[in-house]
């Protein structure tokens, strides 16, 4: 298995290479300049700026210089935040997003699997239907609607939690809950659907016929199989949730990496855009690999190849 993991990791290098190439070229081919401002900059100053950032000369040359730096672990400097390297920006903002994201991920798994399982047992009963309705709402209501409503209720009206900010543990609760809602809802629906399928299978009937308690049937046998589609979803979802969310981090004033995925492209900042895309792609590859390994551990029928 080690050899296999290594092979997957080695294969991810060309993938990352292609991703970063496309990102850089796309940002550089957008009309406008990262140094544009309302005031026209004298030609001499603009030339110096472009030289400073290695954004002068033909595009292939800019690209070659950038890739040379990337190959040496240097993701270049931000054109927007002039005193910061991209490495520095990622190093400062990624841990914040990972902290918030892991809390949200934990909540999503906890509530998603519990509620999904509970709904499956009470299939078609009142509880199942209301839970699935809530889950449907959770999936369909975007966070830019749910988050301000939550802030309004819990922070402004009830004064239970701070409205925004970062730095103390109570400031993480509301954003983590808001961030987890759509994921928890999706996991709940996946768990329920998959569990209902599994509970119809022959081996469950056998287990019940052997006189096992309903808990043992559910937790020891059914869930183990039913969890497989959830794992398949959770891999890519982890990459998304851990690299931050522009909506949540902007609304709660959290200094994470999420807003950069959109704002750096709007600022035409080629290096930050490529840098954060690189981070996201790495996370995606890594968590897909982890999900595959987990598949293998949970279900021995799966062969890693």
């Amino acid at each position, binding site marked *: 298995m080690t050899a296999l993991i290594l092979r997957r990791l080695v294969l991810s290098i060309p993938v990352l290479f292609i991703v970063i190439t496309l990102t850089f070229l796309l940002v550089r081919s957008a009309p406008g300049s990262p140094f*544009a401002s309302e005031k026209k900059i004298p030609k001499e100053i603009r030339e110096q700026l472009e030289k400073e950032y290695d954004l002068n000369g033909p595009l292939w040359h800019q690209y070659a210089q950038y890739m040379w730096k990337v190959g040496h672990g240097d993701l270049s400097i931000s054109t927007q935040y002039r005193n910061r390297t991209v490495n520095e920006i990622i190093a400062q903002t990624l841990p914040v997003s990972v902290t918030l994201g892991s809390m949200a991920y934990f909540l999503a798994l906890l509530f998603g699997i519990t509620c999904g399982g509970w709904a499956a047992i009470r299939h078609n009963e009142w509880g199942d239907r209301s839970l699935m309705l809530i889950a449907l709402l959770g999936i369909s209501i975007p966070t830019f609607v749910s988050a301000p409503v939550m802030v309004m209720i819990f922070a402004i009206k009830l004064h239970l939690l701070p409205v925004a900010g970062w*730095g103390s543990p109570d400031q993480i609760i509301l954003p983590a809950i808001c961030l987890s809602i759509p994921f928890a809802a999706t996991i709940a629906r996946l768990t329920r659907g998959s569990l209902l399928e599994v509970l119809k299978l022959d081996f469950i009937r056998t287990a019940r016929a052997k006189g096992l308690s309903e808990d043992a049937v559910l937790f020891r046998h059914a869930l183990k199989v039913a969890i497989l589609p959830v794992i398949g979803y959770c891999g890519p979802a982890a990459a998304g949730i851990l690299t931050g969310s522009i909506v949540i981090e902007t609304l709660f004033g959290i200094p994470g990496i999420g807003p950069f995925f959109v704002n750096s492209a709007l600022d035409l900042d080629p290096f930050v855009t490529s840098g954060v895309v690189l981070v996201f792609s790495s996370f995606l590859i890594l968590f897909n690999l982890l999900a595959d390994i987990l598949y293998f551990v949970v279900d021995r029928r799966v062969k890693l190849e």
Partner: protein
Amino acid sequence: MGGSASFRLHKAFVVPAFLAGALVLFLAFFYFFGGWTLSAPADLTLCNGDEPQTLDPGIVTGQLEGRICLALFEGLTTRNAKGDIIPGQAERWEHSPDGLTYTFHLRSGIKWSNGDPLTASDFVNSWERTLNPVTHSEYSYQLYYLVNGEAYGTGKLNDFSQVGVKAPDEHTLVITLSHPTAYFLELTSFQTLCPVHLATVKKYGRDWVKPGRMVSNGPYVLKEWRFKDYILVEANPYYWRPVPVHRIKVLPTNNAMTCFNIFYSHKADLILDTRSVPSILKHDIKEEPYSHSNPFGATSFIRFNVKRKPFDDPRVRKALALALDKQDIVTKITRAGEPIANSLCPPGYHGYTAPRGLVYDPAEARRLLAEAGYPGGRGFPDVNLLYATRGAEPQQVATEMQALWKRDLGIASIHLRGQEWGVYLNTQQMVDFDLSLSAWIGDYNDPQTFIDMFVTDGGNNQTGWSDPQYDQMLAKSESTADPAQRMQILSNMEKILVEDEVPVIPVYFWVGISLYFSDKVGGFEPNFVDDHRWGEFYIPGKKP
């Protein structure tokens, strides 16, 4: 059945243990990596609008960066709470009768925040750095007023000793201007002309602006700077006078609703920026005791592309200007009490009378349009109205304008063209539009900041419009030492701009909105330049 019982026991134990473990791990992670810092409490917290791009005063261009820079650095002159120019690092100055030579006398004993003495040569060397193209300062043109400033700044001259700034001794700075500049003392209070500690800049390069490294000379020093989280500044012990507020925390929150929530829940004392006030609330909170607004030297206007049909015809441009119901836009869309603008220069410049401009007159507009060959808007070619999609307001304003011109002139062929900010700026600079929704914030407290934009081929003209007479008048105004006469020339120039030739339609003047409770923040007075120096702030009822 025994199996089932032990399973239950097992389960009862596993879930809480798992939860507790996860919580401990999580808190540990949060503590070590998530930025759980207990910073020193601040005496004043303010929302500044966004994360500063840099805090290097020579490089900074934006207003929100400028505010922090002017707390950390100080030029020869500074401003009081009312916005008037007062002595800063220079204790007094005099200028020659022709207005070309300024002699500044620095305060004695002034120091940098590390205790180094600050001398006149610090100014000379800092200005050399800012002007040098290698520093790529986008605002270096603020030093083009100096003799040979532009030549050095554009690399045509390599010998800085020929530039009009000299330090004959430690406390004296002699500046020679290339032409009389009525607002020169305004420029010396601006961040671009603040001195920097060159030894620190050389030592740390790009990193010199970081806490623990930055050496500054203003009322405050940089204490902490957590990227996108907060900036903490603390009173500079070496500043030439004590400041009333010891520690100020600056939040870079860029979402207006979040800013308002933070202020509303008393986690911030002051919202400085109009953009940090949610536009949907602007109107509703106007009467609240914490909402303060003031006229502000900025104007929203429309640029015509005069090189393209049909706007190459001044009658068409005038028709569109006369038919624009600006009152409708400020009461329906912007809603913060903005005055409508018929002139480009906002009212309030000392000694300046703006021309009357073109007042809303749809009948006259229809007549002019018919005269130009488009009676009732018939046959009017397809044109686009460019705007930036930064925030919702520009799009709403553009949509309203489209409807107003249809209503009053019958023109149905104006199409909206929204672009991302960076792309919009590029399109405007290439003059690749028909109509463009633009705005200008005055750089200094003088009408020239608006009027010299439209000189032939000026970098900020961006309309294709050119008038030799206008250029000559500008040159004449620059060599006129008599202030009243100069203002008259500028007013005549503006008349050409907004009444006769109309390459632009002024729409409305901006108002600055700030939120604070008067019993919590003092020393914050509305001023026309929207420039509030933090050294002037105090907390009412609290002795410094």
